[in-house]
């Protein structure tokens, strides 16, 4: 077992670009995403459907399929460059160092095998132990994720279990090899709220016990508040805001993050209508020039025709917006840095 210390970076994503080369053009599903997850930390990745959060996760697992391709960037897990590993080495990383649980517990288990067998398969894939031992471990894992009467449940088929039970089986499967990083892609979206709370509690407890890091993908800010240490807000394939969870909830800077926060109903607050973010996510085949959010942004101003850089507005708080740290429009037009100017020129090129 590798030694896990707090503080150090476990996963570092740097300038990741994953593009899909469709017949209608190039979809830049992930376009220059960078963030890092600390050992034992929980990173929340938030955004609307189609903002690239799942594609980021699949890129980390290197499970992007045609017509998609990781075009650029680096993904380092404990100082190992995942993008330069051979397919075989990568298979060993999957399920062993990084595990993933999916949104749909109803369909993520193979209907033709007993739950116990699916867990023991995951174990024996990575550890050369006998089938018996693997089976014992599978039952033990089911017990650990709070499935009563684990021995019997291990011999049941997925269709015989409820949704919450199945998600527990998925978690048992993902954790059976004691991974350093768990990627949870909307783990509770398909479950009802009481089960949701149970599953989140379970994930928290297992995180403490196994000292693993979690990359939590969700559009549910409640889940983020509950679980995450750090948050990355994504919009149209780019990170628009990144900070620790308290900062994002107390002092969101980017208008999109503010919009997301304003659209959650709060208890005890009288409001006739919930705030909505006007408009829709831009067509990925036809992204606007400049700031990708400008068409929906209440603060849109002329300067937004130039793509804003992701800049530090206070220590540890990044935002991709021209507004000043105080939230004011910039006094003078920004002096385009070289980087920004190049990006704008590139965007224009693509447009032509």
């Amino acid at each position, binding site marked *: 077992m590798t030694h896990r210390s707090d503080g150090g970076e476990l996963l570092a994503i740097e300038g990741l670009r994953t593009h899909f080369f469709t017949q209608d053009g190039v979809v830049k599903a992930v376009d220059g995403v960078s963030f890092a997850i600390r050992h034992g930390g929980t990173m929340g990745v938030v955004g609307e459907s189609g903002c690239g959060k799942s594609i980021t996760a699949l890129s980390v*697992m290197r*499970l992007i399929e045609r017509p998609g391709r990781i075009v650029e960037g680096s993904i380092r897990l404990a100082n190992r460059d995942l993008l330069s590993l051979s397919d075989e080495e990568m298979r*060993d990383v999957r399920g062993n160092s990084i595990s993933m649980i*999916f949104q749909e517990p109803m369909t993520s288990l193979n209907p033709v095998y007993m739950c116990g067998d699916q867990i023991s398969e995951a174990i024996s894939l*990575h550890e050369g132990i006998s089938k018996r031992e693997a089976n014992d471990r599978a039952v033990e894992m089911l017990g650990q994720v709070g499935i009563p009467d684990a021995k019997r449940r291990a011999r049941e088929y997925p*269709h015989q279990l409820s949704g919450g039970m199945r998600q527990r089986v*998925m978690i048992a499967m993902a954790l059976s090899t*004691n991974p350093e990083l768990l990627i949870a892609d909307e783990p509770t979206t398909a479950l009802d709220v009481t089960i949701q709370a149970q599953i*989140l509690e379970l994930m928290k407890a297992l995180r403490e016990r196994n000292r693993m890091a979690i990359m939590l993908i969700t559009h549910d800010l409640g889940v983020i508040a509950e679980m995450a240490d750090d948050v990355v807000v994504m919009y149209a394939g780019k990170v628009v805001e990144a900070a620790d969870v308290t900062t994002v909830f107390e002092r969101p800077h980017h208008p999109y993050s503010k919009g997301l926060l304003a659209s959650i109903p709060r208890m005890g607050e009288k409001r006739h209508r919930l705030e909505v973010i006007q408009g829709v996510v831009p067509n990925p085949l036809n992204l606007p020039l400049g700031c990708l959010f400008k068409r929906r942004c209440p603060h849109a101003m002329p300067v937004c025709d130039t793509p804003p850089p992701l800049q530090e507005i206070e220590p540890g708080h990044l935002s991709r917006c021209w507004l000043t740290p105080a939230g004011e429009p910039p006094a003078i037009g920004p002096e385009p840095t070289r980087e920004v100017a190049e990006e704008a020129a590139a965007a224009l090129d693509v447009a032509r």
Partner: protein
Amino acid sequence: MESTQTTPLPGTAAGAVDEVDLTPVRTYWQLVRQRFVRHRLAVIAFFLMAILIAMALFIPLLSGDAWKETSLERINQPPSLTAPLGYDNLGINTFARLMKGLQTSLFIGFSAVVVIVMIGVTVGAMAGYFGGWADNALMRFVDIVLSIPTFFLILMLVAFWGTGNAWVIIIAIGLTGWTTAARLVRAEFLSLREADFVQAAKALGAGDRRIVVRHMIPSAMAPVVVAATLGIADSVVIEAALSFLGFGITPPEASLGNMLTKAQDYFYRDPLLAWYPGITLILVVLAASFLGDGLRDALDPRQRVEAN
């Protein structure tokens, strides 16, 4: 590993214990059987097929060479205890010959289906799993095979490789009949490839081979089983047709087809000689079809058993 400790975790709500129900856990095959027996026609077909197979196996074994022994004294003798269907114009025990013919036909039918399934599943799985140009190339090849009139291709192959050999017929049927199985498996694989559990298996680090063999083929088998049982019926009919035309099993070897050929010479004097192999053929085909139907319903684990 600290996994040996099993202190209760938060979130494993005490209420979860209520979820323990006491219905017995059924294994996969118990479930399959339970669903299969609800399909009455399929159960009848199953027993019919079992009886046909048992008769085809044991009666020729017990009656020795009776199926080809001619005898001048017994020509056209009526039925008796040792010859329930009488004797034909050469003094051969018709029942013994019918059973030997059934044995040949069933052997060819089942073996051809094994070849069909092996080729069909391999081609279909590769096309469906890898997609892209592999899919295109393989499926266009399927189209080519389909565009050739199958029966004439089989006739040609048999004529080329030699008539009267059961293995030649099996290979010929196998090489021409796999297209349906391939298409079915490909179609299943195209949707299975996107299935969440396949993605989950990949995320656990399973390789292509394991995913195809362990996770996808079992889920794609239901339509293949149906195609295969129907394939038994088809193959038996093709064999009969070949033998009828003189390209299949030739006398003195017995098959349902060449018994029919012979019967047409005596059709007015002894029409029963045509009825026996004809009815046997129909029984085989019907049994195989209904069996296929029942198995399809039973093998699909997504169909739940209602409590009753």
